[in-house]
């Protein structure tokens, strides 16, 4: 099992001892790859997630940037231009065009009060997105705080906190929203008369009730997820090591537990956004959402039901917008979860 013959072409010097420097040259450490860089790289490889990200950026552009430069505003009722079909011009407008005036076409027509529908859909998207984002932010904050305290302290603290969560789960949310709207109606109206609170009238009592309800009820899902993550993480040996160093509970939660949860938090929040948007749309559809004339995709859909036969596009446009927004956030959230899941790595 050998080849003993040494080729005489080998250099005698080859058999001199190698220096330490020569040996060390072979043991270089690889490029440092942080957790985020690695995750982003994996995300980039996921085509579907990348497409969703592009779509989301496009939606944001349409909802926040474009209305600023759009020739029409969402509340402006143009007399004589009621109930126009998409790309149709009213008599007044055609007259204006003949005089050389340039009239921007109504891409989606107008509604029964003469308001340009396209801008209303864009504004509706903005409202839905903002509600979705703010609500998800509230859920993230309250949920992760509650969940990490319950998970970290365990024992009867955890038990009591989780029983409260169980009770909250049983509360019917629509009922509470309605009750709160009724209860808040008078006090908030009174408050909105005072200086600095005019925005309450714009946003509407109903929407405030929605936010209050999100803060009261919808964070429980996030709390459960965070709690179970914390329960697993706190058994990790590096947490024991931190305790052995003398770290306080607060230090451990902040530096070790929550930072290791961040991946989960981002993913869960990203998946929470479409859920919040949907809830808002559905509440607005029922008439419990933003106050008129501020549009929301849900309220637009609701209003469009009446004229469905004659103006079907008035329902399809906001419905399509809701679908696209929710689908893209869901796909992006899925992609994020795959990219940052430590178990799927290498």
């Amino acid at each position, binding site marked *: 099992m050998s080849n003993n013959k040494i080729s005489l072409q080998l250099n005698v010097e080859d058999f001199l001892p190698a220096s330490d420097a020569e040996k060390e040259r072979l043991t270089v*450490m*690889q490029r*440092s*790859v*942080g*957790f985020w860089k690695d995750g982003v790289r994996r995300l980039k490889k996921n085509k579907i997630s990348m497409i969703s990200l592009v779509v989301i950026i496009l939606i944001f552009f349409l909802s926040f940037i474009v209305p600023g430069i759009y020739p029409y505003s969402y509340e402006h009722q143009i007399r004589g231009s009621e109930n126009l079909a998409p790309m149709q011009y009213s008599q007044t407008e055609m007259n204006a065009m003949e005089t050389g005036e340039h009239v921007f076409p109504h891409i989606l027509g107008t509604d029964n009060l003469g308001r340009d529908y396209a801008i209303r859909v864009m504004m509706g998207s903005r409202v839905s997105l903002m509600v979705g984002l703010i609500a998800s932010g509230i859920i993230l904050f309250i949920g992760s705080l509650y969940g990490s305290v319950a998970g970290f302290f365990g024992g009867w603290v955890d038990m009591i906190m989780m029983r409260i969560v169980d009770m909250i789960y049983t509360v019917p949310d629509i009922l509470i929203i309605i009750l709160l709207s009724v209860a808040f109606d008078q006090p908030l109206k009174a408050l909105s008369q005072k200086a600095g609170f005019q925005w309450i009238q714009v946003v509407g009592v109903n929407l405030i009730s929605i936010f209050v309800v999100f803060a009261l009820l919808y964070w429980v899902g996030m709390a459960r997820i965070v709690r179970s993550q914390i329960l697993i993480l706190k058994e*990790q*040996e*590096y947490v*024991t*090591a*931190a*305790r*052995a*160093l*003398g*770290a306080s509970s607060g*230090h451990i939660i902040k*530096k*070790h537990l929550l*930072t*290791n949860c961040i991946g989960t938090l981002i993913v869960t929040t990203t998946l929470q956004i479409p859920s919040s948007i949907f809830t808002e749309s559905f509440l607005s559809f029922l008439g419990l959402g933003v106050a008129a004339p501020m549009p929301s995709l849900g309220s637009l859909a609701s209003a469009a039901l009446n004229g469905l036969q004659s103006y079907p596009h008035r329902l399809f446009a906001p419905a399509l917008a809701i679908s696209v927004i929710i689908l893209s956030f869901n796909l992006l959230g899925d992609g994020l979860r795959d990219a940052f899941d*430590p178990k799927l790595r290498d």
Partner: protein
Amino acid sequence: MMEHPYLVEVKNLKQYFPVAGGRLFEKKVVKAVDNVSFGIKKGETLGLVGESGCGKTTTGRTLLRLHEPTAGNIFFDGEDITRVNMLPYRRKMQIVFQDPYASLDPRMTVGDIIGEAIDIHHLAAGKKDRRDQIISLLATVGLNSEHANRYPHEFSGGQRQRVGIARALAVNPQFIVCDEPVSALDVSIQAQVVNMFEQLQEELGLTYLFIAHDLSIVKHISNRIGVMYLGKIVELADSYELTFHSVHPYTRSLISAIPVADPKTSRKAKRIVLEGDVPSPVNPPSGCRFRTRCAYGDELCAAQEPEWREVSTGHFAACHHLDQVN
């Protein structure tokens, strides 16, 4: 002022863990550590060996009050620290863990992991001082300064273990519990890390409690060794004495079971092979716990727990039939 003979001492230490299951009002416990007493002198290494479930790891962690003891007392330099605030003592007593992969936070750089120790106890006078301390600690364990910005997953097992040692050293402790520090490492790396422990002990005057299941390594590094079985210490003696003149039947079978890396000796060796499995720590045998696997077990062993006796100077064991065994 009288100098205390021991730097670290435990007396009648008990650690019982409640166990799920069992009938409604029946409280089942695992007697992980059951009435353990020993002392460790300054500068000494006490080895603690035993198989799974014997309680050696729990003893080490309870000693540092990472679990609160169910009963018993812990002393550091003569002071009873069983119920005091541990924060100042965390600077004097540290621990190195078994698993180099799990004991380092994967999201922190190596520099921050070591720096955390410095931060908690405010040992640095400023950013530069902190950085200098970290670099010096890395050098002590054989790593260089460029490693400080890297993450644990970029290192090999042996290197991660060195980081764990550097972290323990950051607070300048007097006593370190080494909880199976080389068990998870490759054989060729184990010797490096064991040598490092020895070297650090010489240079810094450290005292160790060295916990492991590999008696060969424990014997190499320890001055004295304690053997544990199902929560109790069954024998305690000087390393040489324990290896060549052990008296307890369990110690003897443990030693005989260790495969020797020497074919000629191995072929000649007479093996004492224990029958049966290790009993469950939830329901240990009455009297002497080892009696179910012991060749000498009888009714006396079942009825009474053997007494902890000094067999010869500094050599202790608990067995009813020591004269028979030897």
